[in-house]
């Protein structure tokens, strides 16, 4: 170890605050992209699981479902479930960062307070984007088609990804509060599995028993799935029309949901981040 040279200009600020904010956000995002590349589990879940789900559901259940084109019906459900689970990485990753102590490093740097969170949620967006592409490709191979327009396709994809992005902030707050990646993983599993299954994701609502049906009609996941079906043109006209307002106006419902989640959880997350420290 040799002599340290002269003192530099500590934290010499290059660029405007806005430029720094972008730069910080990008650096924090890049760290999460490298993580996606290096951690095999994430890649497996991002690429293989969507393929598996599309194939399993479309091939195994198709016969049992009294629906003409189950694959068309199914895809929006798989999209929604996959991107919602994709958002939970932000929860476990924030908890992991706290546990490993890297948060303390970030918090003593003159960086933007939101950068780590922006980078983390961008990471989820990236994961979900990759998953969406894979699922759409696989879905197309087994017969899924968008029957509306290019704009319908784009709208549907955007809504799914934006909803998941907003949900990443909810999970990030949970991760910072619970501080245990394992608890986050287990809790997501215990809560999100029922939530995605008691919905219109994989079965038509009118086939559910009344109690479950009422829950499912107001379940936000149903609204997300329904809006994707509407935008992709995958709704089945032979089904009885939905009775809940959220399912009658799914796109508006989801847009409101996205805005509300962001308005509430982005500030809460940033505030929380400003006071956390490992150990």
């Amino acid at each position: 170890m040799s002599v340290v040279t002269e003192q530099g200009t500590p934290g010499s600020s290059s660029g405007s605050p806005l430029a720094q904010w972008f730069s910080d956000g990008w650096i924090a995002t890049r760290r999460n992209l490298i993580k996606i590349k290096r951690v095999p589990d994430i890649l497996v879940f991002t690429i293989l699981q969507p393929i598996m789900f599309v194939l399993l559901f479309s091939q195994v259940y198709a016969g049992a479902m009294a629906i003409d084109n189950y694959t068309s019906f199914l895809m929006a459900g798989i999209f929604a479930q996959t991107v919602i689970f994709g958002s939970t990485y932000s929860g476990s990753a924030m908890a992991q960062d706290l546990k490993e102590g890297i948060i303390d490093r970030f918090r003593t740097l003159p960086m933007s307070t939101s950068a780590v969170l922006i980078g983390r949620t961008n990471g989820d967006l990236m994961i979900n984007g990759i998953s969406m592409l894979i699922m759409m490709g696989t879905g197309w191979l087994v017969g899924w088609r968008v029957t509306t327009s290019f704009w319908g396709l784009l709208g549907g994809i955007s809504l799914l990804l934006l909803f998941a992005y907003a949900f990443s902030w909810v999970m990030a707050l949970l991760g910072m509060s619970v501080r245990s990646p394992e608890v986050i993983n287990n809790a997501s599993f215990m809560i999100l599995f029922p939530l995605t299954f008691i919905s219109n994701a994989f079965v038509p609502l009118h086939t559910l028993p009344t109690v479950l049906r009422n829950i499912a009609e107001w379940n936000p996941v149903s609204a997300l799935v329904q809006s994707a079906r509407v935008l992709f043109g995958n709704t089945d006209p032979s089904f009885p029309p939905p009775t809940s307002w959220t399912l009658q106006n799914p796109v508006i419902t989801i847009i409101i949901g996205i805005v509300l989640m962001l308005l509430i959880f982005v500030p809460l997350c940033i505030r929380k981040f400003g006071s956390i420290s490992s150990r």
Partner: protein
Amino acid sequence: MAIIEARGLTKIYSAKTGPVHALDGLDLTVPKGTVQGLLGPNGAGKTTAVKVLTTLIKPTDGEASVAGLDVVREAKAVRRSIGVSGQYAAVDENLTGFENLDMVGRLYHLGKKESRRRATELIEMFELTAAQNRPVKGFSGGMRRRIDLAGALVTRPEILFLDEPTTGLDPRSRLGMWDVIKNLVSDGTTVLLTTQYLEEADQLADNIAVIDGGKVIAEGTSDELKARIGGHRIELTIIDAADAGAAREALARHGAGEPRSSGDRRTMEVPVEEGAIALQRVLTDLSEAGVQLHDAGIRRPTLDDVFLKLTGRIAEEDEATNEAELEKTT
């Protein structure tokens, strides 16, 4: 001018068992360009003090400033002037050593080129060149520690906070780390370090604050602290216990206080003023009296003595045994 200043810092954590006073009115003044050591037993509040001063946590009460900036109100400005290496390595496990340092540079807004250059320079300085392109996940504890320390030096900060910087380093890396710190100080960096190694505080710190129960219980240079618990002593061990009387007499003659025996009464010591001269005289007397020695020497008080004496129990036990000893001999 004080570059780090704390007045009445208090931090109360709420734990399940009730409130924990991690800091209880801590005062600290660190002049620019000096090394301040924080010494204290486990749970004394060293890490908490470092966390407050490095803007990681807000104090419950009291004020602190670093580089003239308030650590609560001007936290972001404080962060521009400091480098921090906490008690536990703060590194991204999935990034390589190089990527970790490069990222820190970018987040200090050093720019792409400068960040990379500095990362390479630090990797060389901390002898991590061979491992620089491996993810930190596969690093040993000491290597991780060194990457973390390098992270604190990315901007050559004006003020450096090091919480137990050499815990977990092998002896060679520890000496290397000391060199790094000494060099930084000769360049004008102010360093605040906590340590469990008293020798480390002795070697590096200009000033030492002994902390216990969240406040400073003693402060001064290493020499001043040692002086507080007395100067040098002569300690000797005789071979034949029958010579104990003669030996004690010699010690009493040249010492600056009452000689004390311990253990099997073959080992005894006396406080002295001029260590070397007194030892010479004692040895002359003893050889004239034909007393055979197993061991003899000057014993300097160590920081261990200071530490134990100031922070508690063991020192009290010592006194108790000494008193018992005195009763026996008189």
